[in-house]
């Protein structure tokens, strides 16, 4: 069965080309395609600045991390950004081991990520 993941979207005040996405659940090989489709739809709708809130993202594996790197690259290509906030220590360790902390824009707090949009 596919791991459970929910993406909840929220507008960011004063930013028509930005969206907040709250990741809830586990991101792994069984649901990356679903997540990819949803996030690409946002890019296609003109939301090139995306902020991912990982407060409720319990788990990520190497495949899930691959998709995050892809989002970051795609956003930059579109003149936007993919920022991540509220990463739990277990998930952060996975990102760190892979050496992706320098490739992803990671913020401690959501407010910091939003402020960095300006």
């Amino acid at each position, binding site marked *: *069965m*596919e*791991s459970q993941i929910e993406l909840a979207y929220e507008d960011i005040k004063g930013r028509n080309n930005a969206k907040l996405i709250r990741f809830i659940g*586990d991101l*792994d*090989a*069984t649901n990356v395609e679903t997540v990819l489709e949803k996030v690409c739809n946002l890019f296609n709708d003109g939301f090139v600045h995306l902020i991912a809130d990982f407060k409720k993202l319990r*788990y990520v*594996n*190497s*495949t899930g*991390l*691959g998709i995050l*790197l892809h989002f970051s690259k795609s956003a930059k290509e579109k003149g936007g950004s993919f920022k991540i906030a509220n990463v739990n*220590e*277990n998930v952060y*360790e*996975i990102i760190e*081991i*892979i*050496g*992706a902390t320098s*490739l992803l824009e990671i913020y401690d707090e959501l407010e910091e990520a939003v402020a960095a949009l300006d």
Partner: protein
Amino acid sequence: MASKNLKIDIKSGTISKEVATIIFDGELDAGSINKISACFDTIRKDGKKYVIIDMSKVSSVSSAALGELMGGRKLMIELGGDLVLAGMNLEVRTKLSLMGANKIFRFFNDLRTAVNAYKWEFQHQADAIKLSFPSNLKFVPPVRQLVSRIAKQKGYGNRDSFRIETIVDEVCNNAVEHGVQGSDDDIDMSINIDKDKIELNVINVSDPQKAAALKALLKTSMEKQLKIDDRRGRGLALIKMLSNKMSVDFSDKGTSVHVTKVREE
């Protein structure tokens, strides 16, 4: 006033020479203190340091008797062992908990569980788990979560359990990826878990071409030339970084991955 109601039976040497099992039968009241004390003296003189008390025939425990048990536990702890309580009925267990004994003693539902806990902790006895599942990605999440929960239940901390979950996930994903697509062959997993480490062994029937690709990837991995955009390399890198030992055996029958993860917390 001596208790007429309490009977004590001591069994030694059946589990290990350092373990004594005490069977209390009756009421542990103020009048039973001398009997309990004498019992602990006998055990200490006999060189025991680990006591399992079978409480299944105990009908009540007074605070004075509980104090005597605490004294016995202190003695065993000083000798490097422990004193644990097993098999209490609900009423006795509730009363002991109300007196705060559950924060001092380890409670076990029955004697067998208490004995297993001793073997786990003092004899480093490993528990072995074997499971097989179809070579399909959708079976991996429940498998990795199961192993992580087992680790937690065995006393491993959250971080260790998370790392174990990641290792199982990556190893199994690799096994599915390098397996023969559409094959009916299952992936076989065996886990040995003891107090200090978890050993994982995953065997799958490999597609010969994919096995060759895995060999090449492993070689690259060993030479530390993995690139961040190498999807499969990331999984291998994670396994290597999160585990203490990893090896892969290739044979005509399949690919076998062995991983050892030492407990850190």
